[in-house]
């Protein structure tokens, strides 16, 4: 295979790769090898991956090729296409760390439901991607294994917590990736890397086998460079799972059809709501300009744009930083050195309690400990009502804000992130500045509605990617994808290609 050919393969969309593989123009093994080669080339500089499953990926690709050669129908529309799996989703026998020292060396004895669905669909899992420890962060700098760098500028962060998955897409190391989103961990990295990421309705994708941060907020979602690829992956992973009792017992939304419709039609007849509270102070001028241009484009595409008022969004961040740490403090209690993972201080004399204390004290990073302490405090007797109880009330009020907004708009839009990618180390010592990165994504998380980020272009001030957030009512994925697809098609028509196409080549970065 020529160098040129490899370059083509890594830049192709998942949809095109699938049709080339299923049509016999290229083998799944060739596609997988091209991506493994790309990873070998650029990942030393990017550090998107924590583990690369060379043998597993090639074996899975070979199985797809053999099945196609035997005349069988592809297991799914994505059979043979490579994917990067966020290292918080367990895969049997493959090291899973959640970005934490406390799980170093642990190999899960079981597959997450998402993993099973990917494998059953013939998707080739290339490896596990970097993340902020237990998905807590907005820059991937909280990973115990070192930060991931933004392919657009290696001195900048790729967002977080799913910085590894987003960077892998932007660096053309994989055409597909899995993310998880608790307060914005899919959408904010997508925005900062010029890629697409969707957080489904809470309960739309099984959480079984996904290491929990905050159970009532966590949601797994698809990431890719195009809206269609994202939708194709969405349909592979979504749907009811009896092993997750919060999973919605309904068929998954038909998002691929919605994307095709969005690509073919304009936005006539759709009402797009601009959330007044999600574009004021705290938003970078280049981001606001890109967002305003996006709204103008949607108007031009026939949408009726209305402004909606969501007064309780102002309390979203505060409520989120009470509910999430409360659940974190309980969810992370299981990491106690007794059954798996790191064990420190076990000298044969120390008590179990001392070993637990030593392991948790040194095995968890500062941000994780900060949230455990916050949550432990918020749930304490005498404080529960004032903190956790009040936060739950805010959550209800935010859901009501959304309900009334969706009465006058089919989808809501906002910038996905208030800023473009910032410099490594710029906010590590200022937790509040870091938390503000999720200002626009947190309300949708609290309400459990579907929301996605689609690139709206490059910021005039920094030249870095900006994301447009599209939000829809619960189970409204179809309209969300339709709007995103129309917007993307228009962007491609006007700019000659998707945003990620403009990402640096990264040749010779190692």
């Amino acid at each position, binding site marked *: 295979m020529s160098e040129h050919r490899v370059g083509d393969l890594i830049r192709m969309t998942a949809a095109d790769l699938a049709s080339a593989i299923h049509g016999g123009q290229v083998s799944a093994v060739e596609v997988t090898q091209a991506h493994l080669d790309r990873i070998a080339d650029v990942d030393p500089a990017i550090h998107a991956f924590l583990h690369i499953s060379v043998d597993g990926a090639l074996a899975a690709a070979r199985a797809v090729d053999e099945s196609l050669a035997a005349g069988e129908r592809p297991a799914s529309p994505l059979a043979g296409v490579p994917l990067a799996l966020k290292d918080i989703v367990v895969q049997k026998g493959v090291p899973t760390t959640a970005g934490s020292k406390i799980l170093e060396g642990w190999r899960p004895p079981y597959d997450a439901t998402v993993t099973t669905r990917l494998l059953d669909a013939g998707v080739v899992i290339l490896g596990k991607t970097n993340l902020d420890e237990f998905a807590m962060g907005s820059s991937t700098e909280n990973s115990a294994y070192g930060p991931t760098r933004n392919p657009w500028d290696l001195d900048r962060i790729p967002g977080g917590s799913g910085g590894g998955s987003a960077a892998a897409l932007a660096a053309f190391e994989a055409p597909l990736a899995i993310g998880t989103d608790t307060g914005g961990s899919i959408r904010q990295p997508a925005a900062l890397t010029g890629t697409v990421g969707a957080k489904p309705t809470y309960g739309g994708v099984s959480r079984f086998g996904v290491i929990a941060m905050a159970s009532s907020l966590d949601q797994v979602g698809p990431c890719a460079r195009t809206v269609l690829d994202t939708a194709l992956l969405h349909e592979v992973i979504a749907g009811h799972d009896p092993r*997750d*009792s919060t999973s919605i017992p309904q068929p998954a939304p038909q998002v691929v059809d919605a994307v095709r419709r969005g690509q073919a039609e304009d936005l006539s007849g759709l009402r797009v709501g601009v959330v007044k509270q999600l574009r004021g102070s705290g938003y970078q001028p280049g981001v606001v300009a890109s967002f305003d241009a996006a709204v103008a484009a949607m108007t031009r595409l026939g949408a009726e744009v209305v402004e909606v008022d969501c007064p309780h969004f102002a309390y979203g961040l505060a409520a989120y930083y009470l509910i999430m740490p409360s659940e974190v403090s309980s969810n992370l209690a299981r990491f106690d050195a007794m*059954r798996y993972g790191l064990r420190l201080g076990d000298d044969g004399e120390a008590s179990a*309690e001392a070993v637990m204390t030593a392991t948790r004290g040194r095995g968890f990073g500062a941000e994780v400990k900060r949230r455990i302490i916050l949550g432990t405090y918020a749930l304490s007797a005498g404080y529960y009502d004032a903190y956790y109880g009040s936060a739950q009330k805010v959550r209800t009020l935010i859901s009501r804000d959304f309900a009334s907004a969706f009465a006058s708009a089919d989808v809501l839009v906002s910038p996905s992130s208030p800023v473009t990618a910032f410099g490594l180390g710029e906010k590590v010592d200022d937790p509040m500045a870091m938390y503000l990165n999720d200002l626009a994504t947190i309300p949708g998380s609290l309400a459990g509605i579907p929301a996605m980020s689609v690139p709206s272009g490059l910021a005039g001030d920094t030249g870095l990617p900006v994301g447009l957030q599209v939000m829809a009512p619960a189970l409204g994925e179809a309209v969300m994808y339709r709007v995103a697809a129309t917007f993307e098609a228009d962007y491609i028509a006007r700019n000659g290609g998707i945003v990620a196409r403009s990402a640096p080549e990264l040749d010779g970065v190692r």
Partner: protein
Amino acid sequence: MKLADLMDYDEAIGKFDPALGLEVHVELSTQTKMFCPCPTEFGGEPNTHVCPVCLALPGALPVVNRTAVESAIKIGLALNCEIAQWCRFARKNYFYPDMPKNFQTSQYDEPIAFDGWLDVEVEGYDEPVRIEIERAHMEEDTGKSLHVGGSAGRIHGAEYSLLDYNRAGVPLVEIVTRPIMGTRENAPAVARAYVAALRDLLRALDVSDVRMDQGSLRCDVNLSLAPAGAGGLGTRTETKNVNSLRSVDRAVRHEISRQASILVGGGRIKQETRHFEEASGTTRPGRSKETAEDYRYFPEPDLVPIAPAREWVEQLRVGLPEMPWLRRATQQKAWGFTDLEMRDLVAADAVELVEQTVAAGATPSEAKSWWSAYLGAKANEAGVALTELSITPKQVAAICAMVTGGQLNAKLARQVVDGVLAGEGEPDQVVAARGLAVVSDDSALQAAVDAALAAQPAVADRIRGGNLQAVGAIIGAVMKATRGSADAARVRELVLATLGVQG
């Protein structure tokens, strides 16, 4: 406190009124655990009934066992409780190595069943005693820690500990009473009768094995004292490890004496968890509860709320079996026992045993006689409950059948029972091994009769002269010669026939 310093029970009751509170944990006999498909079976090699969910591996999620919810609702209904329209699980957060998640999934302020009662027959009361039920809620069991080295399996001084998670996640229902007041000297009997009634109810519902010895029914006794007649509640202790009905009685009795001794001496009761010591019948201090532990309860976000459909609840209500105390009236009539006889059986916890013995073929009076007299004495001797004796109702019935068939007399039957209790096998094996069959072979008996008559000619003459009471002396000699294995009635017939006398 030394045993010698303990206040006499009667004196203690004279000075103080006890208030009781009972918390009973029932392990449900569902096929699978509360939140995962692992088997609940008792025993099994350590850590073989486990999976990612009950080991709390990263990423694993719970799913509620529908049968466990059904059992909890049935228990609630049988205890005359309200069944929640909507309730949630909650996390009870605390670190302990035998609890894999380091929180217990339980119910906090939204129990599935609440505000009920149970009427309990207690000796010494003409009317049943009404025990008010505060709540019955669902939760999961923990694993087991085995502390090796050090003293008596306690954690302090242990060299290391072994963890077995087979029991982790087994469904439990915890049934909590409201404070039980005004029982005075009957407090131990009321506590025992309540636990016994609850156990019978749970067995009738077929929701648990209710084996106190295996821990499938566990009782925590809360007890406090207030000065006699003053009303109110004193500081309470919670006694755990109360593993038999007899222990319930003893634990209450001991705590009353112990607390009274402290209070009379001007001391104050420490709010604490205590452990019942089976051997001494005393309690020893455990964890202090003076500084209340903060469990940081919050609604379990991994589980959706439970909203049992009303039709389902009503269906379960209609399907409830006849409660044991109602069935008892029917049984008493069928068995022809007097009120007193029946009450004795209930007090001895022998009703079920008699029922099963009768079902296995014995007559009610035979069954009652064995369980309340001979076996009752044996259980007392051994300091165990009747149900814990190593003889089954079926074996008792088999022995009754041998007596009826003439193979055994009463004395031999007791020896067979002793053999079974001693682990010598089934009744027929004991008969064979010990050579206990009644001698009913006439030729052997005739020889013994002839020898006895020859040895006592004067007695033989008196019998010939019509003095039938004298037959007893010959029977006695024959029984002695056959070491009790002869059928006395047959001996009598043979003596009379030999001497040509009409009986």
